[in-house]
């Protein structure tokens, strides 16, 4: 028997376990999945918790229930990868040899990286919503909040789900409007980047949207520290923004497992060939999703699209061939804007988000870079798709390859 070891059972690891269980001859291959977490989270759902769209039960399930029975699941922490000897060393000291390995260890919020963030005010007036605990604490806070200054900031890029903080301020605007206290809530969005998004066409559209909703924006704000006494955030260039409620996307970093293995960059992301998805260092190691240092968004949709390339290349290499399929950096995201509307962006390594229809020209049904009700339904249906199709690697009628069909070039 030969071993293929998958480290991490989040979106990427679970999806790959399902894909490979179907593709591989299991009398020849042993699929082993390693992940300490008992729970699998629908992470895009965390954003909706503070605004009471979802409850906890809708975003949490058992890791085990999504893994095929024929897969060996080790619910334990991996200590490090030994790429020279092709083995994974577990926390217990046990060693698992592999013929091939897939790293799907993700990226993780690290509030400890910003001085003062986890001080006195943490989860009292300062909240993260990238964890279940943080999102639920904020839900509780918002349910009785009478208004004040709400500051949303991104501590560092890249982050997973890069548009989530924008969705957050838009949903907050909608939420407090519905509560009838929007006139008592000032909303400010602070980002270390030069605009609310990185690509020009989408930035223009989103900037206008924030303006319409009366959401203030502070750009190139790189947080140095949080002053808990004065209830303010301070940037390296000396700007200071006071808050009554501060919501933050903390610095995101790759897994400590990557750091312990000595295979990561400064942020614990694994140097990965952006086309083949093979580790730059070890040909028998592939990297899927947020764990990789790809020049693309850290998002679940990318994982779904990249999995096809990774599977094809892995199977080719298993047969002694070359990894010939090239990933194009395809990613798409719904951006929920409140008021039962959403927009959709679809892009790749080479093409920025453009307006048009998706996935089909004219028919859509989704409209790119435009707020529509159907996009909103798309976002809501996506939760059901995620639990039932995406992580179970069942086919959905959306092509993995990026396509210009239906898109309009903007001058």
């Amino acid at each position, binding site marked *: 028997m030969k071993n293929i070891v998958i480290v991490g059972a989040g979106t990427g690891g679970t999806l790959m376990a399902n894909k490979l269980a179907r593709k591989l001859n299991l009398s020849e291959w042993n699929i082993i999945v390693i992940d300490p977490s008992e729970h699998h989270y629908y992470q895009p759902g965390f954003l909706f918790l503070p605004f009471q769209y979802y409850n906890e039960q809708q975003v949490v399930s058992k890791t085990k229930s999504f893994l095929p029975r024929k897969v060996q699941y080790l619910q334990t922490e991996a200590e490090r990868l030994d790429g020279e000897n092709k083995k994974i060393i577990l926390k217990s000291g046990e060693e698992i040899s592999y013929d091939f390995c897939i790293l799907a260890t993700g990226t993780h919020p690290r509030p400890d990286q910003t001085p003062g963030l986890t001080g006195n005010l943490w989860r009292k007036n300062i909240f993260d919503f990238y964890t279940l605990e943080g999102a639920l604490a904020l839900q509780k806070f918002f349910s009785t909040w009478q208004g004040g200054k709400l500051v949303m900031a991104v501590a*560092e*890029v*890249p*982050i997973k789900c*890069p*548009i989530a903080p924008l969705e957050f301020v838009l949903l907050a605007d909608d939420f407090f409007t519905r509560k009838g206290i929007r006139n008592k809530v000032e909303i400010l969005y602070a980002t*270390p*980047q*030069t605009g609310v*998004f*990185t690509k020009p066409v989408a930035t223009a559209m989103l900037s206008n949207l924030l303006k319409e909703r009366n959401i203030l924006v502070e750009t*190139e704000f*790189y947080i*140095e520290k949080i002053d808990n006494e004065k209830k303010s955030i301070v940037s*390296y*260039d000396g700007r200071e923004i006071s808050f009554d409620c501060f919501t933050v996307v903390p*610095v995101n970093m790759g897994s400590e497992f990557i750091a312990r293995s000595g295979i990561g*960059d*400064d*942020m614990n992301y694994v140097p990965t060939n952006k086309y083949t998805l093979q580790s730059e260092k070890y040909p028998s190691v592939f990297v899927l999703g947020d764990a990789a*240092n*790809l*020049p*693309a*968004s850290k998002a679940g949709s990318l994982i779904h699209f990249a999995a096809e390339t990774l599977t094809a290349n892995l199977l080719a290499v298993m047969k002694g061939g070359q990894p010939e399929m090239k990933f194009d950096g395809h990613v798409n995201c719904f951006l929920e804007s409140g008021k039962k509307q959403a927009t959709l962006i679809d892009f790749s390594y080479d093409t920025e988000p453009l307006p048009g229809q998706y996935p089909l020209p004219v028919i859509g049904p989704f409209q790119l870079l435009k707020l529509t009700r159907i996009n909103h339904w798309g976002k809501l249906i996506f939760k059901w798709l995620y639990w039932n199709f995406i992580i179970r690697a069942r086919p959905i009628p959306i092509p993995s390859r990026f396509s210009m069909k239906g898109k309009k070039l903007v001058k």
Partner: protein
Amino acid sequence: MATKIYKGIPVEVNEEGYFVNPSQWTPEMAAEIAREMNINLTEKHYQVLDFLRQRFLQGETLTIRSVGKSGIVDVKEFYQLFPGGPLKNACRIAGIPKPVSCI
């Protein structure tokens, strides 16, 4: 696209003044570019520029945080050396493209 003369050599730059071809850059040109931005380069500046160029040529994504971890300067000092957007200013002086995040 435009052409600028640094140290007597015509250099192609983009509309924001970033070098189109990083191999045209010399340390002497850096001092001239820096002066346009009212920065007088010191030894520390040059160490940061070297670090950025090295990382860039290795194909790595440049971040303020990685400069802060370089052992040359911390983030605060980086801001003091290149005021008002240290990474984008330092990259322009280092003759490498403006760093873009890829979300």
